[in-house]
């Protein structure tokens, strides 16, 4: 086949085709590649192919080739995978890359066939965000339904307290206030305050009772499960989400749905906190790591305004909220759930600005060994 004929064939291909030599220098760059990456062939021929890659591929690509050349073990060759490409404009975009080795030429070379996945990924993202929103509605219902009920139950004693107090004031304004009546009113106000307290207490009991089946959970897996939903929430607001998973974490004993609720609640709060800030690109970090006692710590950090110090621990109290439309029960319920697993949920300021919520859960393995010890002790 003549050289020009080969070039015509390459240029007719819909997918971008790039050939590199064993040093990673570009030797062929077809018309589709020019369109996709925004470079003319003449600009890139002879240049290292990592030019077309964002970090971390950009710095590591040389290493990939060397490793293959020395070990002969293919990682990507013959397989193909989804990676990111970088256009001349600096914009990164998702691509499907398949790489083959070209034999029979004087030196070893590799051919990459590249398909643009931008449109496909955008569609996937839309679907995912839709799914996410649906799930979000579902999640909201669980807590929302409960809160609507509590709102009514709390409103009743509150109304009574307000009315008793107002009546008492009117009685006090009389020339000769009826003291016995006022004492009675104070007692009734007290009763109603306790009634409101019982509503909260019952709610806590309800949450503790609700679906108590616990299982050994891999925290990283739980975080990965909810990541789609978190991303859907965050990406809708243009907020980046990064994750850092700890290695060799202990399993924890909890109810999976409840733990998901807690984490979604925290990430949702983080998204709410970052909405309208200028730090959206700093994003939200979700990190799992080994706790000092062998348990697992999950932190959700944001770069929003943080929690003002005068609120302090109060943010975990029911009906304390910094949101305009919040009911202030999310953190209270979350803490109750975490505590029912023997864990803690705490707040600290993010040194980089913003809020950090840390869930700490004890290791389920300790639990098991303790139980075994107890059982052994009981037998002995």
């Amino acid at each position, binding site marked *: 086949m003549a050289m020009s004929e080969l070039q015509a064939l390459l240029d007719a291909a819909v997918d971008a085709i790039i050939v590199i030599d064993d040093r990673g220098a570009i030797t062929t760059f077809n018309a589709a590649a020019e369109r996709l990456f925004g470079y003319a062939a003449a600009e890139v021929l002879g240049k290292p192919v990592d030019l077309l890659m964002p970090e971390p591929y950009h710095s590591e690509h040389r290493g990939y080739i060397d490793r293959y050349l020395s070990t002969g073990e293919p990682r990507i060759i013959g397989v193909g995978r989804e990676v990111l490409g970088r256009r001349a404009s600096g914009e990164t975009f998702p691509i499907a890359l398949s790489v083959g080795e070209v034999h029979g030429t004087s030196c070893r070379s590799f051919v990459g066939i590249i398909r643009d996945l931008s449109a496909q990924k955008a569609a996937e993202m839309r679907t995912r965000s839709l799914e996410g929103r649906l799930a979000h509605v579902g999640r909201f219902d669980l807590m929302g339904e409960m809160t*609507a009920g509590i*709102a*009514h139950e709390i*409103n*009743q*004693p*509150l*109304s*009574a*307290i*307000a*009315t*008793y107090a*107002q*009546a008492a004031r*009117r*009685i006090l304004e009389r020339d000769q206030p009826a003291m016995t*009546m006022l004492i009675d*009113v104070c007692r*009734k106000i007290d*009763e*109603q305050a306790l*009634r409101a307290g019982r509503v909260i207490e019952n709610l806590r009991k309800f949450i503790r009772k609700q679906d108590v089946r616990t299982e050994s959970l891999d925290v990283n897996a739980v975080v990965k499960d909810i990541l789609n939903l978190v991303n859907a929430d965050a990406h809708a607001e243009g907020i980046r989400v990064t994750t850092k998973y700890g290695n060799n974490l202990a399993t924890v004993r909890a109810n999976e749905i409840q733990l998901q609720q807690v984490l979604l609640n925290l990430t949702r709060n983080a998204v709410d906190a970052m909405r309208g800030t200028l730090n959206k690109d700093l994003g939200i970090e979700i990190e799992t790591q080994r706790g000092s006692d062998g348990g697992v710590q999950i932190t959700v950090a944001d770069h929003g305004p943080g929690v003002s110090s005068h609120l302090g621990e109060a943010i975990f109290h029911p009906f304390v909220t910094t949101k305009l439309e919040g009911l202030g029960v999310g953190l209270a319920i979350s803490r109750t759930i975490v505590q029912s697993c023997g864990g803690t949920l705490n707040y600290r300021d993010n040194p980089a600005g913003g809020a950090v919520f840390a869930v700490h859960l004890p290791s389920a393995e300790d639990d098991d060994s303790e139980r075994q010890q107890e059982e052994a002790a009981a037998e002995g």
Partner: protein
Amino acid sequence: MTIVSDNKKKPLQKDSPLVYLVDDDDAIRDSLSLLLRSVGLEHAVFSSAAEFLEAYDGDQHSCLVTDIRMPGLSGLELQQRLNEERAYVPVIFITGHGDVPMAVNAMKSGAADFIQKPFRDQDLLDRIHKALARDNETRKWRAQEKAIRERLALLTPREVEVMQRVVKGQANKVIAMDLGVSQRTVELHRARVMHKLKMRSLADLVSAVGKINEIDGARPSGTATAQ
């Protein structure tokens, strides 16, 4: 029912105001009762709509303060029942957080007012006084209505016809032409109508007959005053 009055010696006069209070929550009922007592408003409290309906006296000058959410008959159903029985007691609904749309519907079907819990005592008291004033108007009018209807029965068919045209704003000349009588005859009919109904001015006549027409027009199987 419990009638709470600071003046227990005298029986309640029909024309002195009474607040009917209906709420299933003991504490809300008790605290509202105390509030009304602290301002010297006579009131009767009930824990259910059924209990209230049993005791309700249509002749009593009153207004009704009721919770909107209640087991059994709800506040809205109670209002409906009162409408059906042509009991014109003004209603103030006490609503919870999520009940506002419900309350708006209630307003459309003729409720006096609604107030959301928890509320300021003065807001409720203002609404109660407004409702009682409205009830007073209604009661005055209803006494008047009874008298006017009795007098209307004394009119001849021709007088009724002339009266309805006058109320519609037709001039004597037009009425005379339409009915094929002299203008003088129309003037005579008109004078007799004013005399028999004991109306002092055309404005009084228009307002009174207008209201009665409105009531009769709204009544499905109404007995029309004229035609």
